[in-house]
């Protein structure tokens, strides 16, 4: 099977770099195989980014991501990293800038999408931003004294409060890893202070919508300043599911981190795994065997259907169509059966491995998948019969939360939210990984950009996913070689059979388990198309078995950011619709 290697390197090309150098001679260019960064001085940063954004022949209009990296033994200590995308030329560029005396100029004037990213950087690293409208903590509460992602902060935090389990007799030790001491748990006052910092009451009442509320799809905490039922002002408090995944990644080997990627976006676990594993494979220079590629693509698309079904169910539930919820979950059960039979666990199936997949498909798997893709379109038809042309559905969805192209670039919206505004931004199309270059599918776009378009788009995407799965099934059946993991590569953990039968692979196995895949020094940013948007992984490797810094660019995080702007002047009922159609998953927004 010959994989036609399409244009998979999205990074800025030579002549554009020349253009940049011409107008900014003192920038330094730092090139890696899968990432290109331009170093700028702090005082030049804003002009430089403005130039990148507005120059006719560059047009890096779209804000992808911003984060910091902590180098404790370097002064200045923190390095800010910006990622931009040029929708015109389909190119990415990274911009690096040292934060002299722990502060950087704020980008909120150029890109509104930078607002939350800078809040997060302030929260996690303690880097200040001059000119930021309201620099408060993103994930932790206001009176939290530390900045967790700094290298000198321990992963376990500082366990200074005595907080034993209430179910134990005082002398009892329930498990060998139990300790009665615990990190500080905030009081209600801390949280109220956090709330006060966000929003001041101007209208009648300030409604706390969430965090533990049936309608908020998890634990997002909305603050609505309401005049009657009309929302005048809104802000969002995140961090009710912030578990420190990025910090965990710095202490786990690449293989050990795969299960954590499941728990980030727990609705589309396999897509997250594939995105992460692809990044690591690019870093280590591994190419998985074709069978693995097709299996990955097939599982990804099944997971995409799964995720969109959950969205459909909860969205319909929020809009009062209670029965659709259970119909959607009926189909989800089938997909979960398939995933359980193939991977072993229904939801957080850590099935993808570096260099391939954990196990080959079991016998009968393809039959079941065939049966599913033959049956599913009929069911989808039923849902559409109930919803698509229902007058209530139309009244609730049409012209609610209209997003235009400019906002997409401003906020760095991706996924269905971007495509509903007519922006053809689909990672599967512009940077095909795995077998996406080999299969046919359509990328649906919306004309208006309202909730109804997003609904139609997700329905259409499910149909396209069915197409992809069908092609993958046929290809996998034709494939001759049964090799599902590239275990000859020195970085890939050998399969169990090899370990049982040869000492060499046992030793290799031991080494990889103990020291991890010691990736060569370098940096990479690679992203995959999650059901929720672009899920990017920015890995800084220092040649150790674990990443020096792993930044997760979450699509839901940036998509949710536009919510306050869209909801102004609308009612709570619309807030439900809008939130549902943006479809955030808290595990991914908070990480």
């Amino acid at each position, binding site marked *: 099977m010959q994989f036609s290697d399409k244009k998979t390197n999205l990074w800025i090309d030579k002549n554009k770099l020349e253009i940049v150098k011409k107008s900014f001679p003192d920038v330094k260019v730092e090139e890696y195989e899968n990432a290109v960064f331009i170093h700028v001085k702090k005082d030049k940063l804003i002009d430089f980014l403005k130039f990148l954004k507005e120059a006719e022949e560059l047009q890096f209009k779209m804000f992808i991501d911003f984060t910091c990296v902590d180098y404790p033994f370097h002064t200045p200590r923190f390095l800010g990293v910006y990622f931009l995308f040029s929708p015109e030329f389909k190119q990415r560029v990274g911009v690096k800038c040292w934060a002299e005396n722990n502060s950087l100029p704020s980008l909120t004037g150029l890109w509104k999408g930078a607002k939350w990213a800078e809040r997060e950087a302030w929260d996690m690293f303690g880097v200040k931003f001059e000119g930021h409208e309201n620099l408060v903590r993103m994930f932790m509460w206001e009176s939290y004294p530390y900045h967790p992602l700094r290298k000198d902060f321990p992963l376990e935090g500082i366990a200074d409060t005595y907080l034993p389990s209430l179910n134990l007799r005082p002398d009892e030790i329930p498990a060998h890893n139990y300790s009665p001491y615990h990190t500080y748990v905030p009081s209600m006052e801390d949280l109220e202070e956090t709330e006060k910092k966000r929003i001041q009451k101007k209208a009648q*009442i300030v409604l706390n919508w969430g965090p533990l509320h*049936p309608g908020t799809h998890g634990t997002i905490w909305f603050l609505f300043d309401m005049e009657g039922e009309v929302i005048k002002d809104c802000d969002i408090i995140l961090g009710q599911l912030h578990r420190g995944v990025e910090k965990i990644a710095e202490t786990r080997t690449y293989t050990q981190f795969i299960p954590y990627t499941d728990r980030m976006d727990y609705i589309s676990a396999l897509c997250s795994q594939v995105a992460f594993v692809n990044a690591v494979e690019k870093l280590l220079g591994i190419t998985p065997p074709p069978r693995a590629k097709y299996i990955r693509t097939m599982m990804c698309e099944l997971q995409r259907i799964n995720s969109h079904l959950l969205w459909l169910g909860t969205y319909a539930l929020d809009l*009062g*169509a*209670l029965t659709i919820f259970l*119909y959607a979950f009926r189909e989800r059960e089938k997909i979960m059966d398939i995933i359980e039979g193939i991977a072993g666990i229904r939801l957080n199936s850590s099935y993808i491995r570096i260099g391939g997949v954990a196990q080959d498909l079991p016998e009968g798997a393809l039959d079941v998948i065939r049966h599913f893709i033959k049956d599913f379109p009929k069911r989808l038809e039923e849902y559409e019969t109930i919803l698509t042309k229902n007058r209530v559905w139309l009244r609730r969805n049409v012209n609610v939360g209209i997003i235009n192209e400019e906002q997409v670039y401003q906020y760095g919206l991706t996924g269905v939210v971007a495509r509903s505004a007519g922006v053809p931004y689909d990672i599967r199309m512009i940077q095909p990984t795995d077998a996406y270059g080999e299969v046919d599918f359509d990328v649906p776009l919306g004309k208006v950009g309202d909730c109804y378009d997003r609904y139609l788009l997700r329905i259409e995407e499910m149909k396209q996913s069915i197409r992809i799965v069908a092609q993958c099934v046929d290809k996998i059946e034709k494939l001759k070689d049964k090799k599902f993991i590239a275990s000859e590569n020195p970085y890939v953990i050998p399969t169990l059979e090899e370990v049982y039968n040869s000492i060499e692979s046992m030793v290799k196995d031991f080494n990889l388990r103990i020291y991890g895949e010691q990736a060569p020094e370098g940096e990479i940013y690679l992203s995959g198309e999650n059901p929720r948007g672009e899920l990017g992984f920015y890995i800084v490797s220092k040649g150790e078995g674990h990443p020096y810094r792993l930044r997760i660019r979450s699509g839901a995080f940036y998509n949710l950011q536009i919510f306050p702007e869209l909801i102004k002047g609308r009612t709570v009922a619309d807030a*439900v619709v809008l939130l549902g159609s943006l479809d955030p998953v808290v595990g991914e927004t908070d990480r």
Partner: protein
Amino acid sequence: MELLGTIVGITIKSLIFIVGMFLAAAYLTLLERKFAGHVQQRPGPLHVGSHGLLQPIADALKVLTKEDLVPDNVDKFLFYLASLLAFVPSIMILAVVPFGEPFEIFGFKIYPYVSDVNVGLLLALAFGSISLYGVIFAGWASNSKYPMLGSLRKAAVLIGYEVALGFAIAGPIMQAGTFSLREIVEAQQGLWFIIPNILGFVVIVFSVLAETGRTPFDVQEAEAELVGGYVTEYSAMKFGLFPLAEWYIATFVLSAITVILFFGGWNPLPLLGWLPIPGFIWFMLKLFAVFMFFLWVHWTVPRYRVDQITELAWKVMLPLALANIFIVAIWIMIFG
């Protein structure tokens, strides 16, 4: 002596009605859960008793013995009053609803209704509107944000639809020439009133859905938006009364009135008059059919936004009801 007999009879009958209504409401919950379950390809209550027949008993026991929790910052008096105000009127409507024609047992003439008031329909409407106060009090007394929003929404919806309802029932009244429900039924010996009043029927259906807070009009307890609507702060039996009154008893009674107004009450189905079925059974069958229809709609369609609902009430339902009056007037002019 005569008076005494009447009083005794009425007391006994009202006791029967109230107790029966409680049981009926309890088992209507089971009915709805079973129906919803099977619509969603699941059995609904199954293991508590055989096929969940004891489920309502278990729920009642649990709800009754739950801690009757009253938050500190509520207005205690209104808080208690609201649940009663929501519940009692919907029971009282039963006083004027006839469940069948009078029949003889052991020489006694039994009238299967508590009283045959000659303004029965108006009384029913009046009682229905009283329960509105229960809702508003609940929202106000809870002294919390979600209940307040919920009760305001519910109030807006109710006011909008009371009007449409009032105009929609004008058609049958014009045809029967009386407010007494019994006489309205007797006026439908021949042709049912559904024929000229089709528009009125549509309005009534929407109004009943709105009054009883079922989709597409269940804005007041839209769980995704306002946690529990105006019952958010209620617990134990004080909570139990609300859904019991609103979802089940009110739906039941309003279905009965719909049957009486449009489907000829206890008159047998056309062409089936020869069947040896008493009118009571006919009435119950029709009632059941209408009730199931409401459930069916509830478990299918999504939910409107509150402003859209009021807009619908004033801009669509009210004109339809008025148009219905004109049509009926013309009908009466032509066919007498």
